């Protein structure tokens, strides 16, 4: 059972790291893929211009292949729309997003993206319509009401915008974007006291919000308090100088462009991979992920996805290799060490696992995960019960959740602290009453003499 739990934890851990917004799922798109990947861009052999052309061609060919393989897929059209948008072709982007939305009326990203283009092209009513539709799809999506408010304010409908923003703040009280917009709306309505209140709240949430300071300066000028306004003007100048210095040092040559282009191509590969994987074509998915990880060695997202694929297809050894590559590319990423520890434990590579968990703790001393997993490791391998108990206690001080209490209970039990074990297990059950495992172990400890 414990081994099963470890596997579960690993899978959940890997999945948690899939931080990709990407194309819509297209879960029922199961066509076979055709066309193997023909890498066109080999950085060491091509000039920047040639590499650019090769990468663009490769990306477009991939997207076209995906459309061939998933001709009726919402995700495939979304992928193509995203690609066009990234390359400045908004007309085509909107066409594909609209098609994607037509196929899957619940495609939130397509709806929102199309709305944003409408906003940028000053089709304010259309933008509001699309944002509202997106809101219907995902009612609690952050910032959507801010988008609606922006379109309303640009069309002079301040009162309506205020209603939207008040709702946004009710749901997301820490949204400084909504706070700032609300202040702006009140300023335009000449409700200066309210504007001041919300500008000040914006600054409390985001102390270097130069636009909020600017807003305060404008309000106080209108109120005839010029000295007060001057104080805020001084702050605006200070903050803007800081921003300007960042901009002036920003580079925009081929090196920087190629970095962004590779990221774009990798995203297309990852979006495509999700479609093939969800469609059951694991071989094609693996092929795409391998190409994506080769395209940009510093972009660890594709390796994370590849590790996940290997792990879920019972190839823990290859998953471990991926996590180790991530750790080499991004040595300070404590998640990669955590996953190395978990997979190495499963592969019975205990020395490697222990080193990895220790590394996790050293990289993220305030994160409970490292302490928890090292405790689990000691308990599972029965190598250092006392240390496991200490680690479990430390984990609890950093984050209280059902799994942490479960481990604490387990460690207490192993160390003969029956009372402590029962108390911890009770907490775990309280936090996750429907988890049968916790209850079973609790009952087992309880029955012990």
């Amino acid at each position, binding site marked *: 059972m414990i081994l099963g739990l470890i596997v579960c934890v690993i899978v959940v851990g890997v999945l948690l790291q899939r931080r990709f917004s990407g194309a819509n799922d297209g879960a029922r798109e199961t066509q076979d893929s055709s066309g193997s990947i023909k890498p066109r861009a080999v950085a060491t052999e091509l000039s920047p211009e040639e590499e650019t052309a090769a990468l663009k061609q490769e990306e477009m060919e991939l997207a076209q292949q995906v459309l061939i393989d998933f001709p009726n897929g919402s995700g495939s059209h979304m992928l193509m729309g995203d690609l066009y948008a990234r390359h*400045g072709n908004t007309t085509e982007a909107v066409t594909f997003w609209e098609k994607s939305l037509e196929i899957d009326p619940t495609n939130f990203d397509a709806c929102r993206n199309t709305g944003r283009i409408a906003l940028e092209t000053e089709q304010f009513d259309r933008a509001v319509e699309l944002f509202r539709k997106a809101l219907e799809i995902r009612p609690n999506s952050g910032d959507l009401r801010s988008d609606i408010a922006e379109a309303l304010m640009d069309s002079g409908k301040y009162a309506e915008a205020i209603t939207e923003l008040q709702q946004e703040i009710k749901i997301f009280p820490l949204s400084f974007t909504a706070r700032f917009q609300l202040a702006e709306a009140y300023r335009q309505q000449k409700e200066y006291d309210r504007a001041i209140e919300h500008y000040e709240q914006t600054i409390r949430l985001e102390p270097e919000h*130069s*636009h909020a300071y600017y*807003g305060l300066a404008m309000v106080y*000028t209108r109120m*005839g308090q*010029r000295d007060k306004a001057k104080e805020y003007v001084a702050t605006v*100048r200070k903050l*803007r100088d800081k921003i300007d210095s960042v901009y002036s040092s920003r580079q925009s040559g081929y090196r920087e*462009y190629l970095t962004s282009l590779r990221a774009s191509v990798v995203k297309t590969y990852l979006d495509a991979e999700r479609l093939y994987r969800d469609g059951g074509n694991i071989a094609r998915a693996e092929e795409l992920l391998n190409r994506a990880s080769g395209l940009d060695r510093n972009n660890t997202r594709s390796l994370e996805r590849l590790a996940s694929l290997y792990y879920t297809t019972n190839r823990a050894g290859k998953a471990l290799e991926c996590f180790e590559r991530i750790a080499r590319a991004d040595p300070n990423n404590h998640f990669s060490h955590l996953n190395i520890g978990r997979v190495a434990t499963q592969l019975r590579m205990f020395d490697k696992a222990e080193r990895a968990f220790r590394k996790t703790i050293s990289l993220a001393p305030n994160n409970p995960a490292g302490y928890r997993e090292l405790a689990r490791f000691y308990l599972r391998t029965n190598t250092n019960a006392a240390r496991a108990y200490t680690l479990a206690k430390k984990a609890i001080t950093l984050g209280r959740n059902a799994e942490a209490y479960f481990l604490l209970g387990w460690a207490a039990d192993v160390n003969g602290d029956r009372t402590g074990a029962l108390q911890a297990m009770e907490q775990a059950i309280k936090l996750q009453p429907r988890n049968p495992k916790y209850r079973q172990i609790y009952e087992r400890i309880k029955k012990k003499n």
Partner: protein
Amino acid sequence: MRGSRRKTDRHALIRVWQQTHCGLQLILMLTLSIVLSQACAGNSVVFRDVTKETGITFRHTDGSSGERYIVETVASGLALFDYDNDGDVDIYFLNGAPLKGAKFRVQPKNALYRNEGNWKFTDVTERARVGDTGYGLGVAAGDYDNDGDLDIYVNNHGPNVLYRNDGNGTFTDVTGKAGVANGSRTGAGACFLDMDKDGDLDLYVSSYFDFSYEKHKTGVADGFDVYIGPASFPAAPDVLYRNNGDGTFTDVSKSSGVAGQVSWGMGTICSDYDNDGDTDIYVANDGAGNFLFENDGTGKFEEVGLISGVAYDIHGDGQGSMGVDCGDYDNDGLLDFYVTSYQGQLATLYKNLGDNAFDDVTRVTGAGEGTVANVTWGTGLADFDNDGDLDIFIACGHLLDNIDLFDDRSTYFETNVLLTNTGDGKFVNASKQSGDGMKVLLSSRGAALDDIDDDGDIDVVVLNSRREPTILRNDSPSKGHWLGVCLRGVKTNRNGVGARVKVVAGDLTQIDEVHSGRGYQSHYGTRLHFGLGAREKADRIEVRWIGGPVDVFENIAVDQVLTITEGTGPE
């Protein structure tokens, strides 16, 4: 009174009868006229592209060699002014010069065209000796030596040039003697103003940035080489020169207070924004907050752009500001500012609230219509249809000549924009309904507005990057009366630069000032123009001379150009 002209009926059909002798040609042109007249029927403003009829052969170059030096993107401005004092407006085009690696068989130079009347122009550059071969960016015309004719200051990428008008159709380069070469910076706008009210014109010279070939770099957008933005180069300080009254100038940038602010300067305009009787300075800055230098009346300035609300747009965002003009768009007696900007940003209208504060009213007035997709440059407020309120002309054209390859929301060649004032403080985009002149597809930079054919309405000349200019004849159906006002200073500066004119006609009160240097690094409008609608006389005209008296005149006939000499009645 000089040059009194009743507005003639300039219906296209009449013009055809006057100009055509060949029967076949007549029929063809008649047909064309009818078609065009019908196409524009009911429109308040109609511009015809008459470039080919003018004899103007000037073609602009940005001096490019393919290296994409940033200075290429911002060239050039132009000037409309009466260089030979014959009563009509002549045209001075600035030109680029070969940049490193560029080769030209004929050296590019600035060009002066004399207005011969009836839309014919003669190239008098050589004779007038104003064919500067420097890299021209900005220009202002002003009578700096108070000898009764307009001199020219050219703000170059490289040493600047001051041409003194010798009064006989020729100019003399007096830059060295005057001390206004301004080193070898990359220039922008320039303005003459009488900052200290001592009766002679001082000079504000805007600088874009500190550029050299060693500092050159380019950018990449979606895999295409592109010009890089100005923030990649250090901003350079603007310079203010005080006129010593003896043909020389002194750099007073530090003592005047303007040197304390440094940014990427572009278009400039000088006007009395706070109605306190002295001239203030507005500088449009590219990618940073705009400056408004408030004059204390003695030529000492405080930068108040940010606190007064003209530095940034409505949300507090800095714009890629290019050109700036001012005018009282809502006839409330206060001068408002209009500032052009980069693609994705609205050209911005700042309404003067009268208490040293402005509101960005772009959205609420519609003054940004048609601008967001474009890079906007030259601009001017003028009453094109003589209905008693100011309309807006905006010159457009992207600065990236390959923008079409990676952004489908903009194009290198763009049509210009005309916003007509509806009379209730709002604007409508009339570009598509205002004649073939608004359909010209080029990459425009400077724009200058004046009554070129002396027929009582405002025409437009546009300088287009790398191409021929566009000359737009205002063929609008007559909508109203008008009054031209030409100022002659006696104790104050000769052309009345900075003087405030108020015209009251029945229920309509309008104000304007004489500016020297405005829009996108250009000069125009030395002779003021007031559209009066149906009002058949001006009840009262007030002239507040800068550093001088206030002259008042009553019951003035309309549809004429009135020359007013300081301290006397109108001629």
